[in-house]
């Protein structure tokens, strides 16, 4: 998890401070992929401490824990306050006897925060979704594409987005975000 070297280390260290759209690396956290049918969804939320959102493309946050809907039977669970093995054990206990899949994906993706009044504009250079607040409100989370990379995009506040991108694509996504915000420097 956090002992892995981030491929964004040097990029983030030399990034310019552009107020219109700031880029920063989000601290690594425990991430689990949960998949299960109807009966397992409630107990999984109880075990995790955040009720899994049932509305499509939404995330729910409580303290240091976040649960994002990625598919009708698939959620991404992010915990900043627990290590993967302990969290997995807690959830396995809550889900005893219920068919489900719970996979540690902590090392799979890196989080990038895009923040500022032009954050949506910068993301739209690579992401084809309508990022207006009417179409992509605060609390929305979805898997989508950013240029050639698959990302999970979440809107945390009107001007702050969280991008979860697979490690090997992270320098590519970061480079494109830098390119896109250069006009505001």
């Amino acid at each position, binding site marked *: 998890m956090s002992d892995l070297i981030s491929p964004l280390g040097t990029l983030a260290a030399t990034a310019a401070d552009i107020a219109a759209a700031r880029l920063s690396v989000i601290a690594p956290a425990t991430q689990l992929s949960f998949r299960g049918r109807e009966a397992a969804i409630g107990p999984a939320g109880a075990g995790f401490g955040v009720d899994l959102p049932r509305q499509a493309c939404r995330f729910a946050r409580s303290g240091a824990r976040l649960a994002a809907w990625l598919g009708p039977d698939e959620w991404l669970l992010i915990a900043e306050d627990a290590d993967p093995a302990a969290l997995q054990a807690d959830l396995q206990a809550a889900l005893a006897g219920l068919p489900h899949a719970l996979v540690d994906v902590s090392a799979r993706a890196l989080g990038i925060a895009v923040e500022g009044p032009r954050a949506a504009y910068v993301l739209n250079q690579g992401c084809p*979704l309508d990022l207006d607040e009417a179409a992509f409100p605060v609390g929305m989370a979805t898997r*989508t594409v950013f240029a050639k990379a698959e990302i999970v995009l979440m809107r945390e506040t009107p001007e702050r987005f969280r991008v979860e991108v697979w490690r090997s694509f992270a320098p590519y996504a970061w480079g494109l975000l830098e390119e896109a915000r250069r006009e505001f420097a």
Partner: protein
Amino acid sequence: MLIITCPWCGERPEIEFVYGGEAHIARPADPSALTDQQWADFLYNRTNPKGRHAERWRHTHGCGRFFNAVRDTVSDFFVATYKPGDARPDVEGDVQ
């Protein structure tokens, strides 16, 4: 960009999706009872209509789910999308 309505996620851009071939083709319950011609029809032969076509799509870069769509092969217009397992909707008239 072509907008496709995912039955779960709503209106999304075309590049998040992949095409999955003609819909509503059920695998024969007992393949060994079929003639070679019947088996070839199941494997390879498709209706290929000019007009409304029921086909499978997958929202790969989204919820990851397969669903079905009725698309007009002449205009590329998506007439309807619906969840797998549902019957093909009976869409009347010209909705373009």
